[in-house]
């Protein structure tokens, strides 16, 4: 049995309080990190093999090493807690149940990259989570883990909360920066990359909540230990959120690379009402869906990429045979249409048009040639958008069409579901 690391304490009474966190060994990693050279911390995180849990799987230590070393330039850390990818509910668990784990990771990260100020960008709907974070930050100041001269080390660090206000696109890192700067959340052109010119045009690291929550454990238990969990190229523990047609939906922490079959059947209790699995989305709705044939795929960045999909956020959405794939595709495209920031035409117009075609197919008003039209529209969007949202929308739809083209065609012809 895998012993949980990130979720170890979430069922402890008052797990969000600093005294409970301290009793369980909290803030020891910070004390250790403050005695290390910043480069030593970065090297440890590099050696651990940690890759970003926000979706793209970028090596975390490498990302940090891009930050210029010049101590006269202010630098920033932004924690991405915008958690909006449908099917994803992992960061919320950490924020509500073990906020100090995140805060400790953030302070260590600031120390490594030389940032004195960090922001947590939390989606506006997480009102309770933001309160929990606020209280935890206050506690950390009181105990001297935040503020000036932390643990007598001469290191200063402040963490502030920035609340979003309902815009999925602000999870995209440059849109997030725009939003902190008090603008509409529209992605920026890259380069310059945030590591050189990010928040307020200063060097900035943006990391996901789960990524930052791994840091104290890596410092405490060593890079080797972390690297030994799961596959060599994407090691560590991973939070898998399972939702949809399973008996036990919920959050499961398992080694990266655990198969979808094991997660869905052994941990999430299998398909409800003893039905058959029809499809599953491995990592939030942007990740193209897979079918029963792919159940033995290890859930890690590289194995899923090899299957033409992605680990994304690790939010697994399970569909049994009663699910209508046309409806799922329609709902998914409706989401992207709603969340398109409108900056570029292929995404803005393309998601709108595709959504309308999907809507009419779903309503039983599909026209001959609609499936081909969808494919053509995908081709007109893909690779022509400013940020990955547009491509994500296309990939999701293409995934559905790839495995269930017959079902779309049946819908168009017979004006109803196959089932």
């Amino acid at each position, binding site marked *: 049995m895998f012993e949980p690391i990130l979720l170890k304490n979430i069922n402890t009474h008052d797990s969000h309080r600093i005294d409970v966190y301290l009793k369980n060994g909290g803030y020891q990693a910070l004390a250790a990190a403050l005695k290390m050279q910043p480069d030593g911390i970065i090297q440890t995180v590099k050696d651990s093999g940690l890759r970003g849990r926000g979706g793209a799987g970028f090596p975390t230590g490498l990302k940090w090493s891009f930050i210029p070393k010049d101590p006269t330039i202010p630098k920033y850390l932004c924690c991405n807690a915008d*958690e909006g990818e449908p099917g994803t509910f992992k960061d919320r668990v950490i924020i509500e149940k073990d906020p100090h784990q995140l805060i400790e990771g953030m302070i260590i990260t600031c120390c490594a990259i030389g940032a004195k100020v960090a922001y947590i960008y939390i989606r506006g709907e997480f009102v309770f989570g933001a309160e929990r974070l606020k209280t935890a930050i206050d506690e950390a100041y009181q105990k001297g883990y935040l503020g000036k001269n932390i643990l007598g080390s001469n290191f200063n660090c402040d963490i502030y909360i920035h609340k*979003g*206000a309902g*815009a999925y696109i602000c999870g995209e890192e440059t849109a997030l920066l725009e939003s902190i700067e008090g*603008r509409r959340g529209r992605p920026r052109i890259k380069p310059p990359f945030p590591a050189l010119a990010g928040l307020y045009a200063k060097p900035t690291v943006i990391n996901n909540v789960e990524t930052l929550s791994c840091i104290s454990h890596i410092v405490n238990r060593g890079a080797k230990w972390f690297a030994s969990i799961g596959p060599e190229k994407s090691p560590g523990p991973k939070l898998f959120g399972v939702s*949809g047609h399973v008996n036990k939906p919920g959050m499961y922490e398992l080694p990266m690379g655990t198969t979808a079959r094991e997660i869905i059947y052994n941990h999430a209790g299998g398909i409800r009402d003893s039905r058959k699995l029809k499809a599953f989305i491995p990592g939030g709705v942007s990740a193209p869906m897979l079918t029963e044939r792919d159940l033995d795929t290890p859930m890690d960045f590289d194995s899923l990429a090899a299957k033409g999909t992605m680990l994304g956020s690790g939010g697994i*959405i399970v569909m049994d045979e009663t699910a209508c794939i046309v*409806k*799922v595709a329609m709902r998914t495209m409706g989401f992207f249409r709603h969340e398109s920031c409108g900056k570029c035409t292929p995404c803005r117009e393309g998601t709108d048009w595709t959504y309308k075609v999907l809507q009419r197919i779903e309503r039983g008003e599909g026209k001959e040639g609609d499936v081909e039209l969808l494919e053509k529209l995908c081709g007109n969007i893909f690779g022509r958008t400013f940020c990955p949202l547009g491509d994500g929308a296309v990939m999701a739809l293409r995934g559905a069409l790839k495995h269930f083209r017959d079902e779309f065609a049946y819908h168009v012809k017979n004006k109803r579901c196959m089932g």
Partner: protein
Amino acid sequence: MLSDKSKEEIKRVLNKYPNKRSAAMDALRIAQNETGCLSGDVMQEVAGILGMPAPQVNEVAAFYTMYNKKPVGKYHIQVCTNVSCSLLGAEHIVEFLSRKLGIKKGETTPDKKVTLSVVECLGSCGTAPMMQINDDYYEDLTDEKIEEILSKLP
């Protein structure tokens, strides 16, 4: 006019940032908490406090969905209808609420007590179907649970 309390609160959040503009989102939220919705006058006042041109503030308010540009009821019910919730009956939840409240989605009851909206994923997919009423999440919804929740709204 915003109350002194809200103005004080806005001044306090300015400390978090190196410039005033960054406080625009917080300021709009603070203003909305007091006034319920962001009228042109309210946004003008926020712009004044932040020393920003009013169109810049309006642009921010228009972009983010949580800023109410129209008045909403005392209770704002927002039902997630994204994929995970939809698979477990979100449409039924919307219909059920609609029937109980006698309003369609997007509408407010005549007594201005309740507004019913449908929204995108709220990050609670493992406890679907779910809804948010003002700041609070209500998860694993059933008809009975909804009836109870509605009956307890003061």
